[in-house]
């Protein structure tokens, strides 16, 4: 028999929530709201791929080491293989499927195509979602390991090739398309900064 729990919230917690193996969650994925009962063991990656048919995010390592499963949660890039779906209740999730506006590819997708920044393509959805996070983090002035110590904490970060390589280090590419990926991310950064179509917060 299946036991389903209401999403656990504040206040008094019913004992069933503590002992059950499934809970109901609301996930807002690429603008669509889904209400579904999930096994507590399910990761967000598995729910996206197996329940919602969103197979863009890939399972490479399943341990946070490769970045193929990268999606954005409330605008922040994250490894969906390490996120329990039940813990994402109410969150906005953006996957690679949510980036284009239906007519036009997102500037990052365009740049990946133009620069031929892939071979087999397995890592590409994760690379693109990660890059979207990188553009936003740089615009918000978030430093990286290679940002000069004396950089202005209030300013945006200039995405040099070194910055892009460091910030994208959570995304592995077994085909070694790295040089073109760096170029594509730089191109997209320039385009978005110059106000050409698309923005860094598409999708949710």
């Amino acid at each position: 028999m299946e036991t389903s729990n209401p999403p656990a919230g504040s206040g008094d917690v019913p004992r069933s929530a503590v002992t059950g193996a499934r809970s109901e969650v609301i996930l807002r994925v690429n603008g669509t709201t889904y209400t579904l009962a999930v096994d507590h063991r399910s990761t967000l990656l598995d729910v996206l791929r197996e329940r919602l048919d969103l197979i863009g995010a890939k399972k490479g390592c399943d341990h946070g080491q490769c970045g193929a499963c990268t999606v954005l949660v409330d605008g922040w890039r994250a490894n969906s293989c390490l996120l329990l779906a039940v813990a994402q209740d109410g969150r906005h999730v953006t996957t690679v499927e949510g980036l284009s506006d239906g007519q036009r590819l997102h500037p990052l997708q365009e740049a990946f195509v133009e620069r031929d920044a892939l071979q087999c393509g397995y890592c590409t959805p994760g690379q693109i979602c990660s890059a979207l996070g990188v553009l936003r983090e740089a615009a918000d002035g978030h430093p990286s390991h290679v940002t000069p110590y004396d950089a202005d904490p209030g300013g945006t970060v200039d995405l040099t090739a070194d910055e892009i390589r460091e910030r994208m280090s959570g995304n592995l590419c077994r085909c070694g398309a790295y040089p073109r990926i760096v170029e594509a991310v730089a191109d997209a950064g320039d385009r978005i900064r110059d106000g050409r179509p698309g923005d860094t917060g598409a999708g949710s």
Partner: protein
Amino acid sequence: MKQFGYVRAGSVAEAVRIAGEEPDARFLGGGTNLVDLMKLGVATPRLLVDVSRLPLDRIEELPDGGLRIGATVRNSVLAADPAVRDRYPVLSQALLSGASGQLRNTATTGGNLLQRTRCAYFQDAAKPCNKRAPGTGCPAREGAHRDLAVLGHSEHCVATQPSDMAVALAALDATVHLHGPDGERSVPATDFHRLPGDRPEQDTEIRRGELITAVELPPARPGGNSRYRKARDRASFAFALVSVAAVLDVHEGAVRHAALAYGGLAHRPWRARAAEAVLHGASATEDTFARAADAELAAARPLRENGFKVALARNLTVGVLAGLAGSAARA
């Protein structure tokens, strides 16, 4: 993965109460370590108490000039915080040297402090390991231990503490605030992680059911500067072989204050008191820095494959302190 219950706590009191009722409960922060270990069968909680949305996500100024960092502040937010970057650069740098952008966006302050060792035997549920299964032995001692401890290890365990952030917190004399079934208490960051001794299953001084609520930093030393330097097998996205967190205040060529902690060398962030004793009052030269490192590393007992860490730690120490002294001289 074994089945488990899940509940999202609405308050600190509720989290502590619910966890207290179930002996096999674990708190869930970002889950980047716990979920990984559950997939590996290393962690088998019956209940997860999700604390990631507790209102502990603030970084607040303290009246004495220090900083209070809530337990659910994300690693990336903490690293980017202007006050941290300005007054505690070693902390920002340590965080940014760890994991990946995706992981730092998810990982919390509390979870980062309690992440478990990356010793390969610990992570393989089919292998013996005193830390995971007390009394089964320590295969790392004779086996693969290149990445493991050279200081403070015991016959029972030679694992290293993996958090970069924890090393910076040890150098900064931070305090860890806890809330448990018996109330609140605080533990200095330098004492929070343990040495393995004959109880390697216990990584830290935290007690059953205790929740980390915050980490507090004392006021930054005026005139002091700080830095984190990490040596690893690749340029990014790798755990430390050796890392150094250093705070240095040089006045008229002499060391007025120095705090030094090592990562990658021991079962806890290794606060280098012997090195600090050499540094205090001495002239800020590379010779002094090398003598300080040697004083500390004299206690090292490397294993068959990790003797390189001693020389690496020495060189990193000299490099980091010389860099800090140099920027002080230029300022």
